[in-house]
């Protein structure tokens, strides 16, 4: 098995009296996609926010590339190579694709403050080619693109940042049609093939998770209650697990 990028050991987190995460253990390696599923309120967002350095865990620890780390902030996590694509994508609709790819990392003619637009366009085209995203033009405004294309560019930006080692995707397939979702899944499959980054994918749609992920973890009430390789599980098994939870909750 390839090299482990992130291991979460016995992580817990409370907000006042609310125990959001009680004992989380998971691990993801280079070239691997870990699917994280769970009902609303199961603790998915809290876990993602801990992995991105936005929240600090109350207990347990994170081991990043073999070293225990305390992520102090989102910027700190990013400097280590932990990139996140949030649901809102952080795209600026009025700006062209190549400027979005370089957002807040624009190239300038040092020591002059002027933008190197031509170079940024060239690099943007290269970056998109490298991971096989086809858009009409890197000078197109992002607002003119479809949801799937925007999501793809957001993913490309995270990977393109240079030292991305762990990519966190928060519901990348939410609010997206089957065709658009398929584009993103193919992009993820390509990133997996490249084999240089680990990916954690949070999703609702179980069939897509089983298709693209190597492992599936189910998060329930702040704990990982299920951990299997995708090959050894099926959509029906995952659905059954979630339905079982409903039956318990509703007493039927």
């Amino acid at each position, binding site marked *: 098995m390839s090299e482990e990028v992130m291991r979460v050991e016995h992580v817990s987190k409370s907000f006042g009296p609310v125990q959001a995460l009680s004992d989380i253990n998971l691990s993801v390696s280079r070239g691997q996609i870990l699917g994280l599923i769970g009902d609303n309120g199961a603790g998915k967002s809290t876990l993602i926010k801990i992995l991105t350095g936005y929240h600090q865990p109350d207990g347990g620890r994170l081991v990043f590339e073999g070293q225990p780390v305390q992520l102090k902030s*989102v*910027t700190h996590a990013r400097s280590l190579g932990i990139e996140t694509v*949030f649901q*809102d*994508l*952080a*795209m*600026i*609709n*009025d*700006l062209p694709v190549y*400027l979005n790819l370089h*957002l*807040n990392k*624009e190239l*300038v003619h040092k020591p002059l*403050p*002027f*933008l190197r*637009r*031509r170079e940024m*366009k060239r690099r943007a*085209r290269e970056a*998109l*080619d490298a*991971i*096989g*995203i*086809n*858009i*009409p*033009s*890197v*000078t*197109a*405004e992002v*607002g*003119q*693109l*479809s949801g*799937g*294309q925007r999501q*793809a560019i957001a993913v490309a930006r995270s990977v393109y940042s240079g030292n991305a080692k762990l990519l966190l995707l928060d519901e990348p397939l939410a609010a997206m049609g089957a065709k*658009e979702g398929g*584009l*993103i899944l*193919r*992009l993820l499959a*390509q990133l997996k093939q490249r084999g240089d980054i680990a990916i954690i994918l949070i999703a609702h749609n179980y069939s897509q998770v089983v298709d693209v992920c190597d492992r599936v973890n189910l998060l329930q009430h702040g704990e990982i209650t299920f951990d299997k390789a995708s090959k050894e599980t099926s959509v029906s098994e995952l659905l059954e697990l979630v339905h079982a939870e409903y039956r318990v909750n509703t007493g039927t």
Partner: protein
Amino acid sequence: MTDALTDKRSGRTEPGGEPPRGGFWLGLIRVKELSILVVTIAVAIYFSLTSGPGFSTPANYHTIAQYVAPWAIVGAGEVMVLICGQIDLSAGFVFTLSPFVLMLFYNNGVPLFLAVILAVAVSAAIGVVNGLVHTIFGLSAFITTLGMAFLLWGLSLIISGGSPVSAPTGSWVVSVFGGWGWSEFLWAVVIVAVMQVVLSTTRFGIATQATGGNPIGAAESGIRTNRVKVVCFTIVAGLSGLAGILQGTRVGSYDPTNGGFNTMFFGVAAAVIGGTALLGGSGTVIGAFLGALLLGLVYDGFNLTGISANGFYVVLGAAILIAALLNVYLSVIRKRLGRQ
């Protein structure tokens, strides 16, 4: 190929040819600016044909330039704030106040040139206050700058005693800052050029557009959106203060009834007619300049043809509405074209 993503081997973005030469300059001007330019030229031709021999004379060009300059300078600043998704309602009263600040320094023995610099610095500081109140206390820019507008209005009346004072004379500084007939317009042109370059060729310009276009996204990308906003408020206030000094010095008297909401709204109108989105995210300084030029031409043309000044406001109102509608409509069309 209709899919946004394709197989890695066949996957290509556009053919990797060189971007067209001159892209730098073309990038500064967009369709919106070209359309307003066409309208402006059409209006100029119309008035030169219909309003008698008085229109196409150097003296009249000078008159138009005098109308346009303050609107263009205030407009250049308002564009920056509007792109941030904010508005500065107090800019016109910074315009009113700054000449009196200049006189406070000048009358207390500060050399004239230094007094001008200090007055502009005080104006800019008012912008810093606007920006900090807005960003630290989360007060909307509309309310913050509305309060600041009345506050500055009152201050101008108190400092001036409600009556005009003569502007300084007999110094090279006077000639440079408005005394020479074309200096105010020249300042406007230089300011517009510099601000357009800042907006479209620097990281700050991109950060400004990002801040207005998607504040949360910009912040998630690490852009310090509050700082960007404070700088933009500082720019509009500093420029408005300078414009107030230029205007008063040109006329030879500093008048507490100069500037005000009128000047501010002409600046905003110029920006909107020039294609700046009121909700932030996009706009150009050149567009605002063309907007100011169009307003100046119409204002002057109405005067020459003897149409009452009241009619001018009807045209101004219609122009703003048409420009704003066009803005919305154009972006819808572009979106549709982009989707195909």
